């Protein structure tokens, strides 16, 4: 098994014993982050999966492989370009105006918690899942916790 596939394994920033396949890093990070809520880490501005200690950030940013796109963006001024006149900006009269709308967002969890529907729980540890199932049973059967 120790062949070409092992080389694409990278270290988890939260726990170095976690050797994670590059392609699974996204998934792993969301899980592992939960176990380290107090960790002082910063994310690289170029890539969300690059998670570092604060002092290392500056060095990383200067050498991050994803910097290319940023450099590409920055160097745009030097390229000779043909500019067309910027288009005029006609004011578009609108029949309605929603600018001052101020309504809270719909919260599906709040609805589901009170409705006669089955709810699922994702990504919780077993103890929480168990508690959730118990609570759901009580909720749906309508038996009060007290």
């Amino acid at each position, binding site marked *: 098994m120790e062949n070409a596939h092992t080389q694409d394994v990278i270290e988890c920033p939260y726990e170095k014993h976690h050797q994670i396949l*590059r392609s699974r890093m*996204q998934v792993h990070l969301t899980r592992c982050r939960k176990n380290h809520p107090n960790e002082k880490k910063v994310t690289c501005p170029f890539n969300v999966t690059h998670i570092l200690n604060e002092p290392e950030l500056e060095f990383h940013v200067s050498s991050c492989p994803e910097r290319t796109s940023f450099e590409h963006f920055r160097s745009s001024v030097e390229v000779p370009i043909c500019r067309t*006149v910027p288009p005029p900006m006609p004011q*578009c009269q609108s029949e309605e105006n929603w*600018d001052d709308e101020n309504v809270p967002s719909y919260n599906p969890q709040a*609805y589901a918690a009170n409705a006669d529907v089955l709810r699922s729980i994702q990504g919780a540890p077993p103890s929480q899942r168990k508690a959730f199932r118990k609570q759901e049973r009580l909720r749906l059967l309508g038996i009060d916790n007290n």
Partner: protein
Amino acid sequence: MSDDQSRGRRRPSREYHSSESGSSRRPRERSTSEEPKPKVIKTEPDSPDRYSRASSSNVSVKREPESPDRSPVSETNVPNIPIKKEDPDGAEVEIKKERASTSRAGGDGANRGRDRVNRYEVSLVYTKPSDVISKTGSLGKEITLQTNYFRLLTTPTWKIHQYHVSFSPEIELRRLKSGILSEHRELLGGYLYDGSKLFTTTKLKEEKTILHTKSKQGENYVITVKYVGVISMTEWQSLQILNLILRRSMEGLKLQLVGRNFYDPVAKIDLREYRMQLWPGYQTSIRQHEKDILLCAEIAHKVMRTETVYDIFRRCQENTRDFREDFKRHIIGLTVLTDYNNKTYRINDIDFHKTPRETFSMKGEKVTFMDYYYKKYNIRIRDPQQPLLLSKAKERSLRGGEKEVVILIPELCRATGLNDSMRNNFQLMRAMADHTRMNPDRRIERLRTFNDRLQQTEDSMRILTDWNMKLDTRLVEVKGRILDQQKIVFRDHRKEPSGEQADWTRHCRSMGMFTTPSRGLERWAVIATNRNSRDLRNFVESLIRAANGMNMRIDRPREVMIYDDRNHSFIQAMEDCCRQDPQLIMCLVPNNNAERYASIKKKGCLERAVPTQVITQKSASNQRGLMSICTKVAIQINCKLGYTPWMIDVPLSGLMTIGYDVAKSARDKSKAYGALVATMDLKVNATFYSTVAECSSHDVLANSLWPMMTKALRQYRKEHDKLPNRILFYRDGVGEGSLKQVYEHEVKDIVEKLEQEYKRAKMEKPPMFAYVVVTKSINTRVFARGRNPPPGTVVDDVVTLPERYDFYLVSQSVRQGTVAPTSYNVVYSNIRLTPDQMQLLTYKMTHLYYNWSGTTRVPAVCQYAKKLASLVASSLYQPPQNALEKKLYYL
């Protein structure tokens, strides 16, 4: 207290919903401003103590007498008896179930069962918290729609024990496994077995039961049945069991499982001249929807190629001298299906030196392939001389501990899928579309037939009744709404309604475009081969005329004639043209050769930052459709120069809408390109900003969204001297399954960084932001009286999911087949808009895709992002010049 009451709802009451959908029973009302008003939905006079408890609360309680029309459906589940008592067909199992429930639970369970029933027949109270708004809107004209859902009338009220079953020695075939297990039927009672999990109503005495069986072949098996846990109807997992029961009953229809769906080999459609079969089938799933548990059924077709790899081998052998090379060319890279285990493999190589007579060692014994297949699958291999196929396992299955190379027998491998030559075969595709593309009325008919078959086939019905499941025969109906026609704004702010079918091609020609370059298209060049010079002149002439009609001035171009159609000649000519700093270069090419197209685009987007327009000779010389082609090209050219053909009314100022999509690279499979397209406050600025970033193809989620968003925000700031008030993000390219991942990985990060960015820019508060996931491939279909619903139809109830803020929108108009609605999931929102406004805004955004003078399936920003990403992924292979980012050069 009110909280207490809202819990006071009885679980097994679903059968009432169906008869009174839309009645006051349903918690979610249209009006959002309504005061919280608790209602007693159903009361029974006997059991005064419970009732008094509910009514003693300090909120007003309305009392309704038991009405006779309420319970016609409830005959299968008499309120006072939790478990169905008698049913001639399913008697055996039912009785067992009942016995199990009484004997198992001792005093406690039985009491609780009774207690539950008494208690919850009494008062069903619902309170609506005042601050919760509903996700259903009210704008537009109401319409009753049918969907491809069936309601589950009775959901069983069981308590089920789950076990894990393992065999030793191991058995591969599911059928064999269940066959052997079935000898212990008496012990297990009525049970469900899916190959590893066993669900039954009987509780075995021990945690781990070990059974011994002798198979017909005389082999001894040891079966270990391990207890896992108990599942009741109050758990999410019970849906899995419902699905399992449904699948079991579908087996009764003599359907065959291919992949994960059932197909009907009897009703197959033979396309003999193409050596193909179409198997009609069903994709089904039972899920918890907004209010009820519904069964979604979609008609699917499976393309089955009738030939095996062996047939291809024989053909190669007959036809060509160098048949090995020929065979290799045909086969390598092909995905094959092996019927014996229903698995697919990709063929990587062929071993011509070996035959099925070859031996391999299995558990220390030498076995030939022929013996192996006979022993394990009872298949006799006919030709012992055929070569062997090699398939390298995928990395993922390697990690799962599978063998690195799998050896396959050509005779047993069936080719699957369509290859390129088939896909390019117009006749074949049309013959297929005739069968697969179904108009709504025919689809409804087929769904009904499916239901009838399920209800009338004895085997299927027995399983359903055994488990106390009943399926409604009618399709679920839902109230949808048709949003008003949107007004398209043309030149001088003249407005025209979009029309019934949301198609404004005609207006486009007569009204003139919204903005055009003030001095027109002055400097531009056309490149064509000598041979096509006449077509070119003709075309340019019409183009100028068409553009003039739409109020866009196009001057005569500089004509560059080249002597041959080699890529290099075109590039050279483009280079020459670029010295004169043209606004646009148009190339008339003899055919749609992908390579030539790519090199023209590379020159224009990567090296030179000049918008390019490519026309094939075929469309330029098309006399009959020339004017409409020219109109489209003129609109495209206008967009490529950075101007706008038409606009819509957006009632929000300071709004930035963003679309994001990904496309996999055609050249390097490990790479993909994500494109982000953003509007810059459509009220005052009708341009689109675009940017592209490279990402790796295995990443489902986007890692570098923020850098791209920063660029868009910076551009916005450059143009308006401030940052947007509201940002609406449409995310395409993720499946429904990864919504939570999207939230954790993308949304949280963006929200956090937006906050920082706005603080840095000295804005008083972060923007109002919403993140919407757009999904196109879904199984939901809606019908309006046997036809497709008109564009603008919104469905935001019944078939939506309770734990999501979602809605379905049919924005496109479809002439053939059934329209597929697009699903929108608002994953995050503090944009401070009502659901009505979100839906309308989304619909408005589908009007702005300038390659098509009509509405699109997804918001225009998504469609642009998709177009840009696929241009980069299939032709450019690297992010284009920044100078182009404000133009729609990718159209």
